């Protein structure tokens, strides 16, 4: 063997070659059996370590990985870990947490606290069983922190494999994992500070410095990065300068966090997390770095972990028991904690179970934590090995168990589209008016009326419904166009914002009401053009809309109102519909500076004044309410605006000016139904 590897450099190259090749081969095998590649890579590391290679072929193992040669390997692998953790940070998107904040937070906290506490608790008996000489407090903290970590990248990979990424469950899992990652890193930072420091004072200083560090990163460095991305965003090609800045940032941040007293990875992760995620900049950056990191550096890291693992040590009865205990507690803490919290926030048993199983996945993150513990001298080889076994078991178990607990059809049923959707915008303000136009010649008048009813920023939807069985005349460019053209022209003249909407309808009343449901206008304006016959004043479409619409409805009976109305009359008795009528009349008055006369019954005078409010000065309020007064004054006005419960027929049958009959919004009405 000697002639192949006789100096440190060629040994290092040989190590690299074997590690990378083995990792690739085992990775493919793992995918074939439905496991994530990280499982294979961990196993590969163990295989190359003292557990297998060392036991079976000690001479080879000694030649390849002699004890002294681990330095360069470990350093390079550390670099890889730093870059990898930076990439993980790049994946974390705060936007993922939006909208699910409460549930996510509750579940994430439970998913950290439960395993941490249980892990710390179990560290004590394990310590006894294994008879290690590790300081108990630090060990407990470390084991707790190690158990609390979830593997964010492996989880993402597993979710993708099971096609869960777009489901509610998948989104929740990712959000929880991201949040748990952040919390766990903070927890770990504190634990490390505590371990490395001499006493509580030091730990406190470190915590304060850490907080300052995080604050600086978030408040100072992030805006700087955003400006950098903004300048770079047009082509998606990253210049090498930018890549250099990113890597330097990650490494620099890592160095600072190390000097502060928390671990290197924390700084690298944080830097990744604050890189702006817009415009696939983060994606492009990740792309540039990912291949080399994942293919070359990470396997080295696994090997370093593997070289520290003595699976044989887990052989003895006590050790096996301790290992089983660790695995049990790890699952109980993570799975159990998550399950309970998820149920508490209202998830079904199946979903909560699936979420628990997903959160139980540990992987690379766990390994990083364990290696940190090993390097700090808190975990000895025995406990380290047992924890590695735990990681393997919990990660390998995730995919198969998930497939049983939450099969594909459940996932499909829970697709994001199924969650109670958003509400339609219900801002029924003065912003929108739906004007229903049935013939070309009434269009301009309807538009003018709609304009009067609105304010400066009002948008008018000119709706025309064609009869379903009409054969459209192909000579005209479009039938609807033809009918709405005069209306739209008038809108232009009056500088009103109007747009056309037209389609074939089988049930015009129903369709008008549905369009109103969806577009939430403030007023639905209808026109009454048929001659009035018999008792049924409002027949057909108008009747249907008055009966069913939720918005305000105004029926415009045009009796030759040629210009904009200059004199308005409102008979007011105080009913809901009268109020609506008065409000609309006030709007018309405001639009044109028309004169408005309100005929009130004495007892409702105050109401009328309240509604008119600041327009009061322009209005004439007359105490009178009998019908003949109304009829008399009607002869002198252009437009009467009246509530629908005032039985306007007699106003229409007699000679009368144009009429605007108003029905209030349905949610403003008293429970008693409108008689019409």
């Amino acid at each position, binding site marked *: 063997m000697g002639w192949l590897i006789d100096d440190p450099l060629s040994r290092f190259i040989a190590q690299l070659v074997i590690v990378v090749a083995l990792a690739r081969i085992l990775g493919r095998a793992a995918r074939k059996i439905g496991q994530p590649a990280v499982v294979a890579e961990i196993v590969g590391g163990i295989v190359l370590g003292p557990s297998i290679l060392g036991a079976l072929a000690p001479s080879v193992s000694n030649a390849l990985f002699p004890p002294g040669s681990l330095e360069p390997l470990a350093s390079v692998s550390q670099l890889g870990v730093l870059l990898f953790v930076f990439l993980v940070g790049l994946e974390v998107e705060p936007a993922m947490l939006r909208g699910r904040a409460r549930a996510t937070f509750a579940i994430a906290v439970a998913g950290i606290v439960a395993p941490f506490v249980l892990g710390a608790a179990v560290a004590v008996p394990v310590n006894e069983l294994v008879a290690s000489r590790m300081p108990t407090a630090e060990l407990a903290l470390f084991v707790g922190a190690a158990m609390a970590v979830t593997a964010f990248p492996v989880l993402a990979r597993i979710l993708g494999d099971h096609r869960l990424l777009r489901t509610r469950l998948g989104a929740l899992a990712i959000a929880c994992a991201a949040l748990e990652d952040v919390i766990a890193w903070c927890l770990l930072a504190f634990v490390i500070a505590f371990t490395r420091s001499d006493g509580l004072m030091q730990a406190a200083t470190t915590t304060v410095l850490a907080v300052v560090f995080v604050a600086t990163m978030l408040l100072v460095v992030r805006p700087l990065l955003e400006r950098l991305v903004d300048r770079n965003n047009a082509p998606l090609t990253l210049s090498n300068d930018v890549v250099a800045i990113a890597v330097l940032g990650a490494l620099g941040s890592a160095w600072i966090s190390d000097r502060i007293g928390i671990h290197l990875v924390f700084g690298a992760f944080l830097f990744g997390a604050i890189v702006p995620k817009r415009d696939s900049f983060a994606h492009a950056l990740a792309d540039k770095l990912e291949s080399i990191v994942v293919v070359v550096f990470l396997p080295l890291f696994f090997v370093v972990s593997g070289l520290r693992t003595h699976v044989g040590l887990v052989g003895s009865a006590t050790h096996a028991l301790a290992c089983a205990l660790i695995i049990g507690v790890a699952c109980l803490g993570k799975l159990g904690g998550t399950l309970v919290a998820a149920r508490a926030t209202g998830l079904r048993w199946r979903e909560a179970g699936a979420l628990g199983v997903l959160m139980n996945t540990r992987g690379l993150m766990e390994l990083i934590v364990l290696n940190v513990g090993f390097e700090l001298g808190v975990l000895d080889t025995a406990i380290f090995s047992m924890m590695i076994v735990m990681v393997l078991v919990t990660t390998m178990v995730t995919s198969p168990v998930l497939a049983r607990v939450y099969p594909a059809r459940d996932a499909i049923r829970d697709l994001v589209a*199924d969650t109670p959707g958003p509400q339609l915008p219900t801002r029924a303000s003065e912003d929108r008016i739906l004007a229903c136009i049935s013939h070309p010649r009434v269009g301009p008048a309807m538009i003018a009326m709609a304009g009067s009813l609105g304010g400066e920023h009002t948008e008018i939807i000119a709706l025309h419904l064609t009869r379903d069985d009409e054969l459209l005349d192909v000579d005209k460019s479009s039938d609807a166009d033809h009918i709405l053209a005069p209306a739209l022209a008038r809108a232009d003249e009056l500088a009103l914002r109007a747009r056309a909407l037209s389609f*074939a309808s089988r049930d015009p009343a129903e369709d008008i009401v549905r369009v109103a*449901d969806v577009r939430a206008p403030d007023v639905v304006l209808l026109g009454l053009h048929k001659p009035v016959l018999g008792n049924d004043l409002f027949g057909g479409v108008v009747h249907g809309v008055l009966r069913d619409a939720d918005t305000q409805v105004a029926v415009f009976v045009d009796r030759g109102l040629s210009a904009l109305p200059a004199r308005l009359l409102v008979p007011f008795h105080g009913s809901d519909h009268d109020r609506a009528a008065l409000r609309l009349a006030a709007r018309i008055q405001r639009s044109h500076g028309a004169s408005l006369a309100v005929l009130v019954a004495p007892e409702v005078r105050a109401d009328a004044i309240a509604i008119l409010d600041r327009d009061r000065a322009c209005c004439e309020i007359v105490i009178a309410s009998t019908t003949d007064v109304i009829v008399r004054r009607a002869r002198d006005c252009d437009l009467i605006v009246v509530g629908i419960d005032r039985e306007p027929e007699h106003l229409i049958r007699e000679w009368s000016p144009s009429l605007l009959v108003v029905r209030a919004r349905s949610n403003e009405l008293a429970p008693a139904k409108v008689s019409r």
Partner: protein
Amino acid sequence: MTTHFGATLRMLRIDAGLGLGELAERIGVSSAYLSRVEHGHDPVPTPDRVIAIARALELPPIVLLEIAQGAGAALASYLERVPEASSLFLEMATRELGAAEIARIKAFIDRTMPARGASRRKPARLSELLVPDRVLVRAVCSDIEDLVSVASTRLARDRAEARSLVAKLLEREETAPSTMGAGVVAPHAIISGQPSRAVLVTLARPIKTRTPDGLPIQTGLILVEPEADRAHLERLAHIARLAARGLANTLEHARTPDDALRRLATLDVS
């Protein structure tokens, strides 16, 4: 005319629940490249890549090829790959075989060479979902919200359903616009427990809005399905394919719903 491959791909990918990095990895390209393709910064991928994408999305490759290259080109590339097929077509042309004879040939093929594996499923056709009741011709709308609102009058059974339907359609539209290019837009939503339904709307005046290829929208196919399964994805891909075959232009001058359906049928072949 072609649909905008990138925009269509993005819509299909998101509906299939695949992340960008995920799909990129499966077909062996970088996610940055795939992102550029989806946003139209890079040209349409090579046929091999398109086929790989189709496999990853579990769609019939020919559908995606048609979307990518246009109807004629997809067929042409098949003929290039399989020269015997060319000579078959020439035979048919020489003998001037008409529709009846070709139907017999097709029956023979169906009988003796049943479709393998994936293509054994019935191809997704739209004519099953569209009845004249669910077709609106020569409507006038100013934006996609109007279009969706209009479609909902024929799609929903009652007002409450119409409201929630429109909300879901618009919400999904937010996450990944369903403008496919070639003047077609296909808003869709998943509502469990209901059979698949669709409404076809043709516009008298095109809607000028942001589309991946700059062409205004002339046709809308609004789709509601119970599950986002493979059949759903195939239907969406099929709509994109119809768009590539010139659906918008074909339907432009339809005067009645029946007329529109007849014209659609000429394109809606497997």
